């Protein structure tokens, strides 16, 4: 009898132990959204590698590519819908000051409609972000930025991946390399190079490439990364970010800050618009005020949001009064806002008042700016042709600046080799191929520089389990950033764990990429089990009693 009971008991053990550990529901299959492979092979491969890494945590993960427009639509406008996505913040000169990203990416005000895609809601962070914005003392501000980075490191709202290196190549028989300028975090592909470039021989046209067609070229539109290269040349700004990464007066003769909330600008005299009319102080005032006219220039509106008023204080001078102190104003606003001719744009804005369109969609037949290059012709899907403005005080040494648009990466490499383009400015392909090409072709030289921007995987905190910081930490911990940099990004990247790139040496926190909480698979699993998650066989389950209520992404 006893033996029978023992036998029965023993045979029940496998039964019991299978259900011995109570656990919540299995975590649903997760989806990583990304661009199609043809559009961004690097992001796509990064997504695949990350999916593999997460599978080791007992998750079912698939990668779903979406064509460009659908991708933007879902990630930006349907924030309830997606689990995770690859995404990037592009390096721009105006982002040499960390304010724009530090503030916009993570403050709670931007959760619904702004750049806070993941929905991070941290009052502590909000405070920090506001404080750094108003702190004019540099060492104090640096400390605040460090604190902000550590807070984000603990919260892991993103699985940061890498800071990419910009790969640029040029034909060194055509261009004098010593005339190129390296800009911190941007490389040689910048405004200063274009305006200083000296041709060595008879070819006096700069021919660059872009893989994506820009959107409208207008002083009130931000036309994507490549289009910006053209707009930067055609429209001047009061200040520009110099090669050292700091703002310097440009269309202004001088810029001073008498108090924390006032900025005095003296306009350079003798400037002319491309249609011959002189650049006046009224034009400058108009350019600072127009983006604030209703909602007619929404991309630029945030950058004038802090301007209380602009007063003319002399024939060539004005005073800007800010609502609040703003440490980054010179960089994020004065170096960003374009000088637009009032005589052309005031009537346009007037006309737009009763129409639904904005100034972003307006493109003049022959756009007029006051910059060192002027428009000759543009076919947005094929090429943009600019010619040197001989009347400009910083007139270029080249004859024309031409941007050739071809989405085909292989054709672009061929074009560089054959001389059809003499500056490879937009290369999204395999870095190995470019290096090989440079090795086998003595006329071609490659220059790389660490970018200000970064790539990451966004965790949507609106959807469990991404709202659980332990889960996010575990996900970030198993990502092998070195491998991502070496394999997905072909060695043209460095590991990242912050939005601030090492290219911004003053603001970056060196070594932060080694401080991801956890940092290994074993540690990641421990983070999960400590937080109550249960591994049932190879599957990850929620803690006891938690049900999976979120539908799988479709």
């Amino acid at each position, binding site marked *: 009898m006893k033996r029978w009971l023992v036998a029965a008991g023993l045979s029940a053990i496998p039964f019991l132990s299978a259900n011995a550990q109570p656990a919540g529901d299995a975590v649903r299959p997760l989806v990583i959204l990304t661009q199609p492979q043809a559009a961004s092979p690097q992001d796509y491969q990064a997504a695949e590698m990350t999916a593999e890494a997460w599978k080791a945590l007992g998750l079912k993960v698939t990668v779903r590519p979406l064509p460009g427009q659908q991708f933007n639509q879902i990630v930006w406008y349907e924030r309830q819908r997606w689990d995770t996505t690859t995404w990037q913040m592009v390096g721009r000169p105006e982002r040499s000051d960390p304010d724009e990203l530090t503030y916009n990416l993570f403050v709670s005000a931007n959760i619904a*409609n702004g750049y806070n895609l993941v929905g991070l809601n941290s009052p502590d962070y909000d405070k920090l972000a506001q404080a750094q914005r108003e702190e004019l003392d540099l060492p104090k501000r640096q400390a605040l930025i460090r604190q902000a980075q550590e807070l984000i490191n603990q919260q892991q709202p993103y699985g940061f991946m890498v800071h990419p290196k910009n790969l640029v190549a040029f034909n060194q028989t055509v261009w004098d390399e010593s005339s190129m300028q390296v800009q911190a975090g941007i490389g040689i592909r910048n405004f200063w190079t274009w305006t200083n470039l000296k041709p060595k021989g008879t070819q006096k046209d700069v021919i660059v490439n872009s893989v994506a067609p820009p959107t409208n070229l207008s002083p009130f539109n*931000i036309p994507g990364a490549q289009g910006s290269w053209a707009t930067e040349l055609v429209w001047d700004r009061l200040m520009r970010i110099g090669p050292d990464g700091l703002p310097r007066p440009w269309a202004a003769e001088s810029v001073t800050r008498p108090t924390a909330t006032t900025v005095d600008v003296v306009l350079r005299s003798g400037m002319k618009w491309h249609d011959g009319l002189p650049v006046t102080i009224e034009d400058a005032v108009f350019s600072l005020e127009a983006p604030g006219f209703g*909602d007619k220039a*929404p991309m630029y509106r945030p950058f004038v949001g802090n301007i209380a008023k602009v007063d003319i204080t002399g024939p060539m001078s004005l005073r800007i009064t800010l609502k609040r102190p703003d440490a980054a104003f010179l960089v994020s606003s004065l170096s960003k806002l374009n000088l637009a001719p009032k005589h052309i744009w005031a009537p346009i804005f007037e006309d737009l008042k009763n129409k639904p369109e904005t100034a972003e969609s307006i493109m003049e037949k022959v756009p007029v700016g006051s910059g060192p290059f002027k428009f000759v012709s543009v076919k947005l*899907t094929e090429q943009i042709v600019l010619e040197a403005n001989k009347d400009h005080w910083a007139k270029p040494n080249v004859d024309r600046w031409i941007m050739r648009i*071809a989405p085909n990466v292989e054709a672009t490499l*061929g074009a560089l080799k054959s001389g059809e383009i003499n500056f490879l400015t937009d290369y999204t392909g395999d870095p190995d191929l470019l290096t090989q090409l440079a090795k086998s072709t003595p006329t071609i030289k490659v220059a790389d520089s660490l970018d200000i921007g970064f790539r990451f995987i966004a965790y949507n905190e609106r959807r469990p389990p991404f709202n659980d910081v332990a889960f996010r930490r575990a996900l970030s911990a198993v990502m092998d950033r070195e491998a991502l940099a070496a394999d997905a990004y072909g060695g043209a990247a460095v590991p990242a764990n912050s939005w601030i790139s090492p290219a911004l040496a003053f603001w970056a926190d060196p070594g932060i990429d080694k401080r991801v909480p956890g940092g290994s698979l074993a540690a990641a699993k421990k983070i999960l089990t400590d937080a109550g998650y249960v591994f049932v066989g190879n599957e990850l389950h929620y803690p006891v009693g938690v049900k999976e209520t979120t539908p799988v992404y479709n």
Partner: protein
Amino acid sequence: MLRLAAGRLGHLVLVLWVVTTLTFVLFRLMPGDPTLNFLSPSFSQETRAALLKGFGLDRSLWEQYLIYMGNLLRGELGQSFLQGKSVAALLGEALPNTVILTLVSLTAAYAFGIVAGAFLAFRRGGVVEALAIPTTLATRAAPEFWLGMLLLAGLAFQAGWFPTGGALSPGKEMGSFSESLISADYWWHLALPALTLMLFLQGLPLLLMRATMLEVLNDEFIVMARMKGLSRWSIVMRHAARNALLPVVTAFALGLGASIGGNVVVETVFAWPGIGRLLVQAVQSADYPLAQGAFLLIAAVLVVMNTVADLAYAALDPRVSVGAKR
């Protein structure tokens, strides 16, 4: 003949109407917010609503349909979201490039195919035929973009004989299309895409020519003519070729219509700025007025060429009459 033509024209109009209506229905089912590409992420709800209204997307489907048909009849195809220009203007720029590519490739393909097909019709049996037929079939069986890329890699990248894409070299702009036509640069850029298409297209006329010539060569009245003592060559020229050309001409007309829409992949591989590439870009970026306009244009050309083919067939072979009575 006139009655025939009128009948076909009436039919043409009807088909066009159905195709345009179908297109309307198709495009209204596009996913997502169609004005999205036009709007910046930092737009307010009000602005978006206002823009939606401006494009008439808030009205009932019926009203939209009537507006759409009315616009079409006036040649008004809307404004491209991405490029801010009128769709009609963009199509107008792209259409000549596609037409030239198609005409050149098709003509070359048919010229080659007709000659080779006739040649093969005489060379029956033997190694030549055994090799030629499968090779021809193979060219038709291979994906065109694959052929294109092989040519691109070999002749453009490796050998450097041809440019790697586009219609003109960087920095060269032509004032008008007719200027492009007479520039050597344009034709140099046209060479590879045209060669690719030609390779792909020559199979049909070759085999068709060969088959119909064989059939006709066996025909009784040819046999009669031979018995009369005429030389083989003159028989071919005078009698067989005329009859054999009929299906080839019809196929040419049909091929023209089909190619306009089918050039999509070749134009993409070579970045040739034609309607096919415009359509792909438009679909990829949800620029739906442009996508719709491109699709309509391609469909219209196809329908028109089908009708032309029908009429040509009837004109060349009076034995056939439309709507055979039973």
